């Protein structure tokens, strides 16, 4: 019964969304404030009904109601309770429902928090969100309905074992919060184009949403990378797989958007470009959804894809992005070009940032879609592998990373490059020190890796140059410096933290890429293999009994000299419901480095084959992204307060002017 209620709730939400697609625009054209305000209620209503609908599906999963086809296909009564719940979105239908729930969440957030928006802009934004919502509601109801029934089955077909992991609880919701968060910037961009005018305040309204989306997307990508790393058992953290690229593309353009919106907010420049980026970023999010859901490209991460329904998403993508770009081409000449600036200036640095990020996004997009285009043109099948991406992406990213510390040190309009360079002297010194130490003594021979490590240190230290300089400007003395440092604008700290995070991630990437080792061994009980400074002794094989799987694990003692530092238990599992085996790698962490042990096969004579990696500093890759997320969130916490204060003081005059026009 609850499932039917969920279905009905979804239909009601869809009807409300259709109302919201039309009425606010009509109201705006007539200047009818009260009619436009009804859209606030519909957005909230849509969120409530979509939430009810989603909750009813979760409830069906919690009860293992196998009379619902979707539950029967993707769940099992013996699964741990958490996986029963998260299994709700471990399939196409449930995943789309989560997608649209988050879309509704953001739309309602604009209605609730957007009290300070000009009346017409808000009406248009809510209408655009209405279009998006109704399209996806119709998509779910017509092609991907999770609420269909069947005669009750005694047992479900189980969730794909790879997805029976805490990662499924966190990664998709995070990623969707990021993807779908950019729908707000899209709606704002289209609304600005519909209205035919755009002002710096637009960037002030949009930037917190873009920042929130970016924070979630960063966390989602990073989380997904770690999940793939420990779950797939190949020791890789990034494969340049189409599905990964699909999430990385909006991240690149979204990062560019954050920076260009900053220019627009402060200097009234780069307006047209910022609007275009807002459209493209959400377009790439939709493209990502399409690539993941359709399975058009061979990927290791896509689950439960469906080419037929993928085509619908492609149609949605073409309609929305194509339409928005047409509108852009038609309306953008009416937008006024903003302030001028010298090439060496904060704006100039941010233009270069945008240029390099977008060029990098372009090459990743090319490599991702090339196989599709190639097949369409020649009929041949090819795949584009990591060599392509490494060769094109790194030469664009490394100069950007070199330039990052300069940006915040340059003044708006006209900056002083010499002064900035002088203030980065300490960072340069630290970088040179690392290059010489690593390249000359620790790991002599190869100079490329030490150089990139130097670059990472340059960024890590350089990121704090501004904070350091401002804190020490008033004289020395620890307490004085601390007091000044804590009094600095939060945005300065968050910029420093986020940039520092990029440096940390780069450090992890270069260390693990250049210095990881892989050992493949066949071991009998008692055999010892040496990996880096650790000796691994294989003891025995033991049976494992899980709730919905069976398996065996190898027991290995990890020794550092004579000291027993860990017991590693790599295992293999077998899930009878799906007749599917999986590997669970054993990962032992030593500060930032990891020992990664995957069990190959257990042989009849009691010996095992093992694949063992030493992953130096690999944890830094994900640690860096935590710094980026914290930096972004920190800035967000400040912005909410300041936007509210600013709008309170400015609300009266502009809004009065708005009504007069």
């Amino acid at each position, binding site marked *: 019964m609850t499932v039917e209620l969920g279905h009905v709730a979804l239909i009601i939400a869809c009807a409300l969304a259709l109302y919201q697609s039309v009425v606010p625009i009509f109201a705006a054209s007539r200047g009818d404030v009260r009619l436009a305000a009804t859209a606030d209620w519909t957005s909230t209503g849509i969120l409530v009904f979509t939430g009810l609908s989603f909750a009813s599906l979760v409830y069906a999963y919690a009860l293992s109601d196998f009379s619902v086809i979707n539950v029967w296909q993707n769940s099992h009564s013996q699964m741990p309770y958490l996986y029963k719940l998260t299994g709700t979105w471990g399939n196409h239908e449930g995943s789309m429902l989560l997608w649209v729930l988050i879309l509704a969440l953001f739309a309602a957030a604009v209605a609730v928090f957007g009290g300070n928006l000009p009346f017409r802009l808000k009406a248009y934004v809510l209408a655009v969100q209405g279009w998006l919502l109704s399209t996806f509601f119709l998509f779910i109801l017509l092609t991907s309905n999770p609420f269909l029934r069947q005669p009750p089955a005694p047992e479900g077909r189980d969730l794909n074992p790879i997805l029976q992991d805490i990662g499924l609880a966190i990664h998709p919701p995070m990623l969707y919060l990021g993807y779908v968060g950019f729908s707000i910037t899209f709606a704002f961009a289209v609304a600005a184009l519909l209205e035919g005018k755009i002002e710096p305040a637009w960037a002030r309204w949009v930037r917190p949403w873009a920042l929130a989306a970016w924070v979630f997307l960063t966390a989602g990508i990073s989380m997904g990378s770690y999940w793939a790393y420990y779950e797939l058992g190949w020791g890789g953290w990034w494969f340049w797989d189409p599905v990964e690229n699909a999430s990385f593309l909006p991240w690149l353009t979204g990062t560019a958007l954050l920076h260009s919106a900053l220019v627009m907010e402060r200097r009234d420049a780069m307006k047209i470009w910022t609007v275009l980026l807002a459209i493209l970023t959400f377009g790439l999010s939709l493209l990502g959804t399409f690539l993941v859901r359709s399975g058009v490209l061979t990927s290791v991460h896509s689950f439960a894809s469906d080419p037929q329904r993928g085509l619908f998403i492609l149609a949605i993508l073409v309609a929305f992005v194509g339409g928005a770009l047409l509108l852009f081409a038609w309306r953008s000449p009416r937008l006024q070009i903003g302030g001028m600036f010298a090439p060496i200036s904060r704006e100039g640095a941010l233009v270069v940032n945008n240029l390099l990020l977008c060029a990098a996004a372009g090459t990743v997009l090319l490599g991702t879609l090339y196989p599709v285009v190639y097949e369409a043109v020649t009929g041949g099948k090819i795949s584009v592998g990591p060599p392509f991406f490494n060769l094109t992406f790194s030469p664009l990213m490394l100069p950007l990373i070199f330039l990052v510390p300069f940006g915040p040190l340059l003044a708006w309009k006209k900056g002083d490059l010499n002064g900035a360079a002088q203030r980065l002297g300490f960072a340069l010194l630290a970088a040179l020190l690392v290059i010489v130490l690593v390249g000359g003594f620790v790991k002599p021979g190869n100079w490329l890796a030490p150089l990139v490590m130097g670059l990472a240190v340059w960024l890590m230290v350089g990121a704090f140059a501004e904070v350091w300089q401002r804190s020490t400007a008033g004289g020395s003395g620890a307490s004085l410096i601390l007091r000044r440092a804590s009094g600095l604008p939060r945005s300065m700290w968050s910029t420093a933290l986020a940039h520092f995070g990029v440096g940390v991630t780069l450090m992890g990437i270069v260390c693990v890429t250049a210095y990881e080792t892989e050992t493949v061994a066949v071991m009998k009980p008692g055999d010892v293999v040496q990996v880096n400074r650790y000796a691994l002794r294989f003891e025995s094989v033991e049976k494992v009994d899980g709730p919905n799987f069976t398996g065996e694990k190898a027991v290995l003692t990890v020794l550092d000299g004579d000291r027993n530092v860990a017991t590693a238990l790599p295992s293999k599992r077998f899930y009878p419901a799906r007749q599917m085996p999986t590997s669970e790698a054993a990962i032992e962490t030593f500060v930032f480095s990891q020992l990664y042990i995957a069990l190959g096969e257990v042989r009849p004579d009691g010996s095992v*084959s093992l694949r063992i990696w030493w992953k130096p500093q690999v944890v830094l890759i994900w640690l860096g992204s935590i710094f980026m997320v914290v930096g972004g969130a920190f800035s967000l916490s400040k912005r909410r307060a300041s936007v509210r204060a600013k709008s309170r003081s400015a609300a009266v005059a502009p809004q009065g002017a708005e009504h007069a026009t």
Partner: protein
Amino acid sequence: MSRRASRLLWIVVIGVVLSGAVGLSMFALRDGISFAMSPSELKQAQFAPGQRVRLFGLVEEGSVKRGEGIDVSFRLSDEETSYTVHYDNILPDLFREGQGIITEGSLAADGSFVAETVLAKHDENYVPAEMADKLKESGRWKGGVVATQ
């Protein structure tokens, strides 16, 4: 710097970065791609040993031979032609006889295929999309074998 000079500078910078990106991509596309093909297509293509290829097909029943250590060999077939594949690493969980897999590597001088990676997808019903197309084309499609979810 005058407005014109500044604009000119930007055009040059943007031009250099974009043409650099395009040039790099063109260059990388020559080496960074590998052709995906079935055993019979590989036979026709007559690649030189060492050319990177993605070979996909079904693992022949009863063809998996394990060596002393970790090395393993098997026949990869598209029911028309087959190649002996040598692999010196741990096979993925879902590797089974009769299963569709993708392997990436190159031809050895003796005409066998040396794999660097073997991929078996994490889906029990998986047959590589390329294979499914090929089987359909040649009319050897067995509907039940390949089920997409």
